[in-house]
């Protein structure tokens, strides 16, 4: 895949290209450009730091959508062994936009569920770019209930633009599938650890995206509505998404501030795609730490705490 350039990276990429050109010239013509090359390299390093250190919410959204960003199947491959994939919802069909499977993470036997974006156009067409249909969400629910039945903790990887917005999805009860998952997750008698690895788009994300812990990658987002959709509603102009991305408070840091997420996993400078193995290692550490803590807890107490945690979310006024 040719290197994918995010809009805000353009100045950096331009400089990098100039550097390559200088190096080529230097080699070919023996022009002794050593000093200039060094200067340019320093400038690039400087720019890289300033560019990536304080990403705006909209820039983070772009990083979260980067095509090279590690996806659910990459995490499964890196973190899990002895995987048995589960297919189908036993009602209608199998939806490839959702992965579900029995898997072992560093000795912990779990049920792993995740949104599965494709890596190629062909895969993405089959998987609707990771946007689940009701049958995908019902497969996830089947996996949750199986996990409860056999006492396996649930680990989910959240990465979707949202539930699929289509005619058939509506006919087969998209809203019903989401709501049933929410009810099931809220009362499941095994630990649930959710990891936001990329996009957290509304109800389709939430349907596998909360539990006893919510761990967010630094550049992952989670939002009630996409910044583009919000901008087209409020401004009749999707082009103003950079503004609404800030207003919606959808970054990992915002979520911790709102008491919705528990933990942020730092990403390599520039995003998870720059050094996936470092990210896998950090996610594995965080998941294991959460599981070790949660798996020893009493099931009644676990469910009660989850319920209380959900019930406490919200900011409102009471009284005249």
């Amino acid at each position: 895949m040719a290197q994918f350039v995010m809009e805000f990276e353009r100045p950096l990429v331009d400089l990098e290209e100039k550097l390559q050109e200088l190096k080529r010239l230097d080699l070919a013509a023996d022009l002794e450009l050593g000093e200039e090359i060094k200067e340019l390299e320093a400038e690039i390093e400087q720019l890289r730091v300033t560019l990536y250190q304080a990403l705006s919410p909209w820039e983070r959204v772009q990083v979260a959508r980067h095509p090279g960003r590690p996806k659910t199947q990459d995490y499964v491959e890196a973190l899990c062994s002895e995987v048995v994939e589960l297919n189908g919802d036993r009602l209608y069909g199998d939806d490839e936009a959702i992965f579900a499977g029995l898997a072992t993470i560093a000795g912990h036997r779990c049920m792993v569920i995740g949104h599965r974006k494709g890596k190629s156009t062909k895969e993405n067409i089959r998987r609707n770019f990771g946007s689940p249909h009701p049958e995908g969400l019902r497969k996830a629910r089947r996996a949750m209930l199986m996990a409860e039945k056999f006492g396996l903790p649930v680990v989910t990887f959240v990465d979707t633009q949202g539930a699929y917005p289509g005619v058939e999805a509506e006919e087969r009860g998209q809203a019903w599938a989401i709501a049933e998952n929410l009810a099931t997750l809220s009362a499941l008698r095994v630990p649930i650890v959710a990891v936001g690895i990329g996009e957290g788009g509304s109800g389709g994300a939430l349907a596998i995206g909360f539990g006893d812990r919510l761990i967010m990658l630094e550049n992952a987002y989670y939002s009630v509505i996409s910044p583009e959709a919000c901008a087209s509603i409020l401004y009749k102009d999707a082009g103003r998404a950079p503004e609404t991305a800030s207003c919606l408070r959808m970054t990992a840091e915002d979520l911790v501030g709102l008491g919705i997420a528990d933990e942020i996993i730092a990403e390599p400078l520039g995003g998870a795609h720059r050094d996936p193995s470092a990210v896998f290692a950090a996610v594995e550490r965080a998941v294991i730490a959460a599981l070790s803590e949660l798996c020893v807890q009493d099931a009644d107490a676990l469910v009660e705490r989850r319920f209380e945690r959900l019930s406490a979310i919200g900011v409102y006024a009471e009284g005249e």
Partner: protein
Amino acid sequence: MPISDWFKAREGRRYTVASAEKSADLPDGVWLKCPSCKHTIYQGVLEENVYVCPHCAHHFELYAHARVLSLADEGTFEETESTLSSLDPLRFSANKPYTESLASAKDKTGMAEAVVTGRALLGGHPVVLGAMDFRFVGASMGSAVGEKIARAFALAEAERRGLVLVIASGGARMQEGMLSLMQMAKTSAAAERLSRARVPYISILTNPTYGGVTASFPVLADIILAEPGALIGFTGPRVIEQTIRQSLPKGFQTAEFLEEHGMIDEVVPRTELASTVARVLDYLSGPEVPLAATGAACRVPASTGGDE
């Protein structure tokens, strides 16, 4: 009535799609034109008929307070949590400050939030009754609506009253960001609790019911009813059209469409809602000893001990 007559009567119900037009806050004693059949109707007559056109059965928008009164036994509705209201936790101000939207909604409706809840009797059954009001920021669900709904579930469980909720909503309230999305999980968790406590819950979907609200507590009810022609779905029709680049099938996302697809129990005209809900409550609640208390396999009428 014999079942064949019942089917005939059912055929005879004239359904019309409720239009987006507002029934408007017109002063009493004026004449209104039905947007569907164009008949001119006296406001008093319309009110008497729970805002259903007496000529073509077009369902006008019914506001939350009028709605709960239309369902509760006369004089029994007592509002709860009437002062619970929204704040602006994100200081949201894209295009229009959220605080302004809230202020104008309060002015327009005289309500503190988009949902009214309370205790009532319905067909003699003690219930918790709630209704959402689309005029209030599109009856979208933010923290305050989520909290009021969650408390309605908790009250129903604590007092073992059947829960009846009338839904209308544009979805989650985007001005409260993730706090709104999480209300879907919070209200679904509350619905799950009530379900496990085996207290009956009936939802009535009205025009329009969409987005994150549809995909949470309303569709978790034991019995789901809907008003004729009400538009109900997850994704709005415009967004779907943009995705599939085709126009949508006729009648898509109407209450009748959902009934055909097995997603709701029945389309019920507004004039028959109270009696339908009461009949359901006769079966699912009532004077019988709760199952859990007896360990019996079936409900046994408390008074007769089983032999009639």
